[in-house]
């Protein structure tokens, strides 16, 4: 691997390459401490939002917030999962359910969250969340209102629920429509009610916080997000055309996701720009993430937060490079909404109601995955299916069938992205090695032979 660097303070064996990944990690930590200090200093409202809640409204209203799933990833990285399982059980909850969504809830039970050990180190992740006054989720799953309701009750915060509707219209080429023709993606009534939901949320937030919503601020936020996501599109397109690729998912997942949670800020635009320029420079210098790249691998499903090094275990032995994950590609294809001076609220509605559909609803997800696999010359797909979360169930049969109909082998496996108890690195490595040897390499060689024959 070119330019291998390992952070000296890291407990992980994962090798990260990009400066942008490191700066994003450093920024998010500093951002969190600054935000926490502000909440404590000003005594202002602070919100926990589920990932699919339109955070743009909060950005425009300058209401501090964290995203539940981002915080889950931080808790996982801080090795809190085992302790949190225990806390859930002590409080009468099942510890094995929806662990990815329930980390903040578990934290809310922790009496040590804000305490320090004998050496002065905080016991809670980054010293714990500030006390939220607002908890908001969308009802994209039956458990969402339960988890956020319990969270709100534990903190004495207000719970706000945003409804979810099911698409009747399912354009297979949605990824070609998102930026400019987003009205065509959705049933009109569905978009209409999403706009009404936003208006009600805004009114509720105005009442709750005493702050007035400004549509011009939202326009600024939306413009900044479009700029940010345009860089992701350029990055995704650039990586797709590179053989070998300059970076792997180990760099792009964190670099993109950490900035994605900051979307709508100037920092996020600058970071995305810097990420693009850094990767472009690598390409211009002819650098490769894995110089002996032979196989291009796609990762489907949530990031393997507890074991990022997993992605790199197949590079030396097989030249197999995990070069695609949804995190960068969603930025490229799912977020951009140009409203051409129209209604930023409607453009925002057209962003947030689609996210679940694009990722978890057949046929929208499988049609996009296939388009992406082709665009990125993918040789094999590894697909993580969570066992304990119906919300993450997304038609794996159709994804596998459609992918393999295109001659691209797919390995489905079951795991939990934050639960180490359900993750055995040795078993999983062996499973993927077997998949590469018996499915991916033969399919790759057959494809190459066919190309030669042409």
């Amino acid at each position: 691997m070119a330019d291998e660097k390992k952070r000296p303070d890291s407990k992980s064996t994962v090798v990260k390459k990009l400066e942008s990944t490191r700066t994003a990690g450093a920024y998010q930590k500093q951002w969190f401490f600054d935000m926490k200090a502000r909440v404590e200093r000003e005594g202002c409202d602070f919100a926990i939002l589920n990932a699919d809640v339109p955070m743009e409204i909060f950005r425009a209203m300058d209401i501090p917030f964290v995203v539940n799933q981002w915080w889950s990833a931080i808790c996982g990285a801080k090795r809190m999962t085992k302790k949190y399982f225990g806390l859930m059980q002590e409080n009468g909850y099942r510890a094995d359910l929806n662990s990815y969504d329930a980390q903040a809830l578990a934290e809310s039970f922790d009496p040590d969250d804000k305490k320090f050990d004998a050496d002065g180190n905080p016991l809670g992740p980054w010293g714990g969340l500030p006390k939220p006054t607002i908890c908001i989720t969308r009802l994209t799953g039956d458990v969402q209102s339960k988890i956020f309701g319990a969270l709100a009750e534990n903190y004495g915060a207000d719970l706000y629920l945003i409804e979810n509707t099911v698409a009747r219209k399912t354009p297979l080429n949605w990824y070609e429509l998102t930026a400019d023709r987003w009205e065509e993606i959705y049933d009109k009534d569905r978009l209409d009610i999403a706009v009404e939901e936003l208006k009600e949320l805004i009114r509720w937030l105005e009442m709750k916080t005493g702050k007035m919503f400004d549509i011009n601020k939202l326009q600024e936020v939306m413009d900044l997000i479009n700029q940010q996501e345009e860089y992701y599109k350029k990055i995704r397109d650039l990586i797709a055309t590179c053989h070998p690729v300059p970076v792997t998912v180990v760099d792009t997942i964190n670099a993109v996701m950490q900035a994605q949670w900051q979307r709508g800020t100037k920092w996020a635009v600058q970071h995305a720009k810097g990420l693009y320029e850094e990767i472009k420079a690598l390409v211009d210098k002819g650098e490769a993430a894995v110089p002996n790249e032979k196989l291009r691998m796609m990762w489907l499903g949530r990031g393997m937060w507890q074991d990022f090094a997993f992605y790199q275990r197949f590079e030396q032995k097989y030249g197999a490079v995990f070069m695609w994950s949804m995190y960068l590609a969603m930025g490229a294809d799912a977020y951009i909404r140009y409203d051409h001076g129209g209604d930023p609220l409607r453009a925002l509605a057209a962003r947030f109601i689609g996210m679940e559909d694009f990722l978890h609803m057949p046929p929208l997800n499988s049609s996009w995955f296939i388009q992406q696999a082709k665009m990125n010359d993918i040789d094999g797909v590894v697909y993580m299916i969570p066992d304990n979360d119906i919300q993450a169930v997304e038609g794996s049969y159709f994804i596998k069938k459609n992918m393999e109909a295109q001659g691209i082998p797919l390995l489905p496996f079951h795991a939990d992205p934050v639960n180490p108890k359900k993750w055995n690195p040795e078993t999983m490595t062996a499973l993927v090695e077997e998949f590469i040897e018996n499915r991916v390499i033969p399919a790759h060689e057959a494809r190459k032979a066919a190309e030669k024959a042409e």
Partner: protein
Amino acid sequence: MSIRTCALESKAFQKLKDVYENRDAVAQSWRSEGRKVLGELGSDVPDELVMAAGMLPVHIYADQDRPLTETDKYLEFAFDPMVRAQFEKIVDGTYAKQIDYLSISNSTDVVIRIFLYLREIKRVEPEKPVPPICFIDWLFTNHRLHQTRNEFIIDLFWKQLESWAGRQITDEQVRAAAKVCNENRQALRDMAALRHGESPRISGSEALVIIGAGLFMEKEEHTALVKQVTEDAANWPVLSGPRVFYTGANQEDLDLYTLIEDAGMVIVGEDTDWGDRYYDRDFNMEYPVIRAVVDRYMLREYSAKKATTPQRVGALEREVSTCGAEGVIFYTNQYDEVATWDMPKQRKMLEERGIKHTTFGRMLWPVGKNEDLGEKLAAFAAEMKGGNQ
């Protein structure tokens, strides 16, 4: 205990039991006469509209002995096992021979995904014998915005039914069907009164048969039979034993109730869609019809799947109080675990009221797979009896 001789001696009960045990018979008879049958998956398909379209509504149910050959191909294991078994019959062609149309309401996440999968199967594997489908995208959050949206959604369902029926459905036809449904619900409420209080005369198993038969037959006939059973049951012996309320997984058969009753407990109520929740809340005849449909299905007692924990705590408190239950049995199947999120607070509420409870989680389906369940229920019954001394 379960189904007693006194019940079996009731001709009305016998007839209901016959329908309950031979669930496809009435639908088969309808179809043989050229009439249409609509299968309902999810608990919120408005019977009133289906009946107004001249169709027989029947519930989709699982066959616990059938191998899940098709299901294992299409569905992940995160699906409720009973719904997986229901899916098998939809995809393997069984229901193609028994129903003309399938309507799916978004009563729970799992069922929504079943709809998405069936829609995709119809698109990419059109040769599969899946009946025509209509999805009803209810919103269950109790706000005016969502009520208005539901009226739009029900109007879509109305139009789909008209298309399937090949004729218009008039307000008068819906009102007439609603009157039949309301009478049916009232008859069931009168029956349920004989389960409640300190002198229950109808067992949980008997009630499941009485209620469940209505999911597979014409409402008018069902109402008449329920009224007759209620009259008969007024003279049935009072059941003795600790009175418990059941909350959790839907029970499409009598296996679990039989075990509970064999352990010596009396089930005086439940919050399931095959039990008491089926006949909660009437269609308001004073309202415009679509609003009345929305009112009935959107605002009835909170289900475990589509309500917040405080709402579910309140619902259980009301239900236990109405039934006069002395204990509560929580029971959830593996992968059907939404209700477990409510339980810590529900248990706390019960404990504050001195009501005993027991919890069975991660249960296998069908019930017979849980080898030591009978012993555990017996232990809870003993605890209940001890508490009564």
